């Protein structure tokens, strides 16, 4: 079609079938979510919440009661991080104008879903640390995972939360067997209302979201 020719117009009496902006946005979101296996991640988060709920029925001593939510928070965070891997690679990066917003929206929505699901799982049971603890730990662990995904690739981003789990559990352990780890960077070992722990977790979460939004996960060739 040249500049001199007229663009074809819709035949009179026919409705324009092009989707509207909102519908386009929804379609884009849906396809982005499908390409990142978001439904599978949501299922994994739900499984973590159900497992936490079942585990809370059992009797745990002080050790176990403190460590238990952290394990499931890590599981949920790892599931979120797995969705950062892109199966499309460079073509999507070049053509996807909305990609940073889609990444941010997906990560935020999944984190919110994880916090909500885990907090709901603790309702009526003895969830050590309560909802604040869940929010802080899940957000911090997700941020750590996003940073790892940006550095090592979406497929291996889970190594950050999985290894931090041991550090967090060790931090909780040192509350019984001193000397206690008091650094706020091991935030799972800090009380839920501790400002230092919340700031560190928030900082890591913000950094992870920012880096992931701007750059996305590093996707090695062939993965």
């Amino acid at each position, binding site marked *: 079609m040249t500049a001199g020719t007229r663009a074809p117009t819709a035949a009179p009496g026919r409705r324009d079938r092009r989707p509207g902006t909102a519908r386009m946005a929804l379609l884009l979101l849906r396809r982005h979510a499908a390409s990142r*296996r978001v439904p*599978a*991640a949501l299922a*994994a988060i739900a499984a973590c919440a159900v497992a936490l709920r079942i585990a809370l029925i059992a009797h*745990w*001593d002080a*050790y*176990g009661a403190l*460590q*238990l939510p952290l*394990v499931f928070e*890590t*599981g949920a965070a*790892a*599931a979120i*991080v*797995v969705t950062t*891997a892109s199966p499309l690679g460079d073509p999507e990066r070049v053509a996807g104008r909305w990609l940073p917003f889609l990444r941010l929206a997906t990560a935020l929505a999944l984190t919110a879903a994880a916090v909500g699901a885990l907090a709901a799982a603790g309702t009526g049971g003895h969830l050590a640390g309560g909802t604040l603890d869940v929010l802080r730990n899940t957000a911090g662990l997700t941020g750590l995972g996003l940073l790892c995904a940006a550095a*090592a690739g979406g*497929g*291996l981003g*889970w*190594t950050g*939360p*999985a*290894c931090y*789990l*041991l*550090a967090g*559990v*060790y931090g909780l352990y040192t509350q*019984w*067997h*001193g000397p206690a780890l008091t650094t706020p960077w091991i935030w799972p070992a800090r009380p839920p209302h501790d400002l230092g722990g919340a700031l560190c977790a928030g900082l890591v979460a913000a950094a992870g979201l920012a880096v992931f939004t701007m750059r996305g996960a590093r996707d090695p060739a*062939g*993965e």
Partner: protein
Amino acid sequence: MTAASAPVRARPRPVTRGPGRSAARLLLLELRHSPMPWLLPLVAALFWATTYRKVMALPPQWYPRAGTMQIGALLAFASPVIGAAAWTAARDRRRHTGHLVAVTARPRWTRLLAPWAATTCWALAGYLACVAVVYGQTAGQATGGGPLWWPVIVGAASLPAFAALGFAAGTLLPGRLTAPLAAIAIFFVLALSTELIVGSRSYWSVSPIVAYPWDNGPNAGVATFYPYLPDLSIAHVLFLAGLTAAVLGALGLSPDAGGRWLRRAAAASTAAGLLAAGTATVLAGTGRMDAHGMIAIPALHDAASDRPLRYTPVCRQAPVPVCLNPAYAEYLPAVAGALRPVLSEIAGLPGAPARISQAAATYQQGTGNEVGIFLAGRVLAGQPPVYRLLLPDQFDGPQLTTAELAAQVRSSTGPGILASVVGDPAGSAAQQAVLAALITAARCPAPGGDCPVPFADPRQTTRGTGPRRGGARRAGSPEPGPTLDIPAVRPGTPAYAAARRFATLPAPARHAWLVRHLAALRAGQITLRQLP
């Protein structure tokens, strides 16, 4: 040249490689492509942060350090190894190369074993490096005993099992979520399954994370007077080897895994592995904590392990020599220094101990998770009498510095030694007064020193080590050790006045009086009025 005389050229031989060489080349390829070496720095950092620092803070003795290292190393390596193995196993699915490798000449089972072996090799290399650092440091610090290799073997046997579990998970469920969920699930199983252990008799003891009786902890007093019992470690190795064989064998059971013979071998491996793992679990369930503080499994127990170890004690010449097990040699100056004032008071008295000697503790599983730790045998034994003491480190209490340990010896063993000389602490009023006076004099050796304890508070009692009294304690409670309650004399009473009078005597005068009257005092024939 005719055809008959022409040299016969040999036919070129087909290039073949032996199966061993091919397998080695495959392993080499997998070693290069394994994600495990990239995870090793992370694992090393975790090991340093959560295990190395903790192990190095323990007394330089092999038993507590080896056991703590076994647990810490397993937790540090478990998640990364399982995750890496699951990630590697899902590689073909992730890269869409499943059909490409399916048509290669190698059977599927053989192809699967190569990446598993590569992950295991990298993990073992990292683990052995960590062990070398910890054992190297400990060898330079420990003054008694030798390296315990069974905990190292258990750790080494765990890594192939972890890799096999991760590999099976990645092969059967080759999704993106498999690796992280498997890594976190194994941590959950390892770290939190110990909640199910009640007492020393538990099937959960088969978990390799149980390096010692769970309620007794990494007690420094264990495996110093008696040999290390490998019973539980043998059960662990049997279980882990069985688990590895069963899981790897199960991967070879599918029809596309290989030929008939290969599948038969896989089935045999699965069956043998399950049998070994089941047997080990049953054996671990029959274990119990023995009197020496370790898990003994009757079917695996070697009676020779119940004989005490021979050792030459390290001694320090004081008014009365103080001797310790060589494993505790670093504490000797502090302990001898802490007891010197007490020993100066009793040296040369009739019936006083000729030597203070460290003895073995005996352990008893109480109800639930309680463990009782007592002195094995009598406090005073032999002729000339030897006072047998337990150091605070031999109890399952909080970690003590040398200064804290010396302070505890001064406040607990000191009064115990004095009570063993003066007689029954609940005996006559004169005995109580003399005992209180000697305790005060030992605490304040300077003449005329004003030491209100133990006179100030009539409800107060002084603690001292004694024979099998009140030793039972719940593991983890802050006050370690058996105690001997020495009643304090009440202020305002004649006993109080007599004790204060006796304590303020010059040390030679006090000593001379005791030399002459100690036998009568012990027999209850001395009254308060007769005290100088």
